[in-house]
């Protein structure tokens, strides 16, 4: 079991706000890690620390055996890390196809334009956006933009994929499709960290789960362990209001 990503004591502050406190975990190759926690727990911030958007104040991040704690986002991309954004970031005035070609051209495999064209077409079919490839990205709806984020990330043929709430805002049949897509991605041997609010989905696809609360890592374990963990139930699942909110989002 080789460790693909190792996060060691990562701490991140925004002014007086402690967004992450000594987060530590190892992610073996080929696994899906679910990352859960209430809104504002620091999940997106952890992604931002891993992929170089905000370098952490303390701690180390080791990816594919290399120290990458202060690496730039493009360095991480070229090393085989891809991510989606919770708030979608389409390249509006480019076509859907061109958006995905950017992923293929500048990711770790560094493809030529004509190769990227083929990869983009294939990936767009895979995520179900094939018929939209000539449209401008700006013209997609939110669910389609989430798929576009996914397609761009996949087109780079990453080793590690960070998915930030790809199910949020989708209806139940769209969620079903997306979960199937995530499983198919795993079958391709891609390691995944998945931030998700839809409990059923995340329990269903994850090998392990890590729970954040106010930047603290309050639990880590298999889905069964997490669903029975006292701290988690208290801080997160047990809170009646939050549970209600989560159900609504579902």
């Amino acid at each position, binding site marked *: 079991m080789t460790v693909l990503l190792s996060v060691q004591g990562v701490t991140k502050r925004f002014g007086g706000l402690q967004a992450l406190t000594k987060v530590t975990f190892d992610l073996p190759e080929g696994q899906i890690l679910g990352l859960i926690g209430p809104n504002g727990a620091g999940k997106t911030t952890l992604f931002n620390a891993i*992929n170089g*958007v905000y370098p952490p104040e303390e701690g180390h991040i080791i990816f594919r055996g290399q120290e990458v704690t202060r690496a*730039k*986002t*493009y360095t991480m*991309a*070229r090393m085989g890390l*891809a*991510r989606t*954004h919770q708030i979608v*970031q*389409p*390249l*509006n*005035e*480019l076509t859907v196809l*061109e958006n995905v*070609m*950017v*992923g293929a*051209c*500048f*990711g*770790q495999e560094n493809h*030529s*334009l*004509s190769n*990227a*064209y083929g990869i983009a077409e294939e990936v767009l079919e895979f995520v179900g956006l094939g018929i939209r490839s*000539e449209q401008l990205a700006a013209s997609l709806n939110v669910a389609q933009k989430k798929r576009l984020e996914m397609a*761009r990330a996949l087109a*780079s043929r990453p080793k590690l994929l960070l998915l930030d709430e790809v199910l949020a805002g989708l209806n139940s049949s769209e969620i079903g499709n997306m979960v199937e897509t995530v499983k198919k991605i795993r079958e391709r041997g891609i390691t995944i960290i998945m931030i998700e609010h839809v409990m059923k989905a995340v329990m269903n696809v994850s090998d392990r789960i890590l729970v954040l609360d106010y930047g603290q890592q309050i639990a880590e374990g298999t889905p069964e362990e997490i669903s029975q963990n006292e701290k988690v139930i208290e801080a997160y699942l047990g809170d009646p209001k939050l549970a209600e909110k989560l159900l609504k989002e579902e």
Partner: protein
Amino acid sequence: MKSWQKHLGLVLPLLVVAGVVLWPIITDNVSARESAFTILKAIALASSLNILLGYTGYVSFGHIVFYGFGGYVGLYFVNDHGWSIWAGMLAGGIASGILAFLLGKAILRLRGAYFALATIGINEAMKAFANNFDLFGGPIGMVLNFSVYKAYGGAAEALKMTFYIMAGLTFAALLISHFVRSSKFGLGLLAIRENEDAAEVMGVIAPNAKTWAYVLSAIIPGMVGVLFFFKNGHVEPPVAFPLHSSIELLVMVMLGGQGTVLGPILGAFAYQGMRGYLVTSDFFKDIQLSVSGVVLLLIVLFIPAGAIGWLRHRIPVLRRVLA
């Protein structure tokens, strides 16, 4: 995508420029040649600026600095060291490219209005430098030794030759513009224009890509500067670094359509036509620049994508032809 389709967008730009080049040749008219020279110069400069403004999304208000600086360097070697116009142009292009490289490292990290302001500052600083640099003649500038033209068969022949060289430079600018746009490098630039942070997350090394875009957008203007000052027979600081020309270039690119190959060509054409009318009209001749300012304002307010961008949006089938 078939490879010929990729180059379909080059057809119209080539035809338009070929038309401008052939017009004075067919009519055999010296004043038509002067007009055509002015239009070709505008096309070459606007197309170069478009690489930075239209493809990369960085607004350079002082792009004329590369024309002035390259022109000075080239003319200096032609005049004081007896270099041929070819070698002089090469020197001017390289000098401007190096200047852009160094400036790029320093100011391309600025975004939006900060970058635009910095480019204005650089143009003014360069003008002040030329004013005080004795090797370039200080405030008096440089006057070309008339005997230089002898090598090209006299002044009349030399002037004729500059027209053909200008035509060559315009075609070169156009080809660079097209090949950047249809390359992987160009896709990276477009991604930066749309969302620089997202582009970097996808692996585009934005600092490098932006610097090379800046360099590419500076080389042709540097060569054009050498050619124009050679043709004029002299250069002085206000002629080399006119801020209003920078703004006119922006108007051309925005008018025709930033980020397309054809847009800056049509924009340069239309703008020069309008300008020709304005400067000869009694009413407008003193406020010609104000009119340009108003035109820029109207474009930004009502057709921010420019004429070609507007057409591409309205009629998607045209996208292949109007690249």
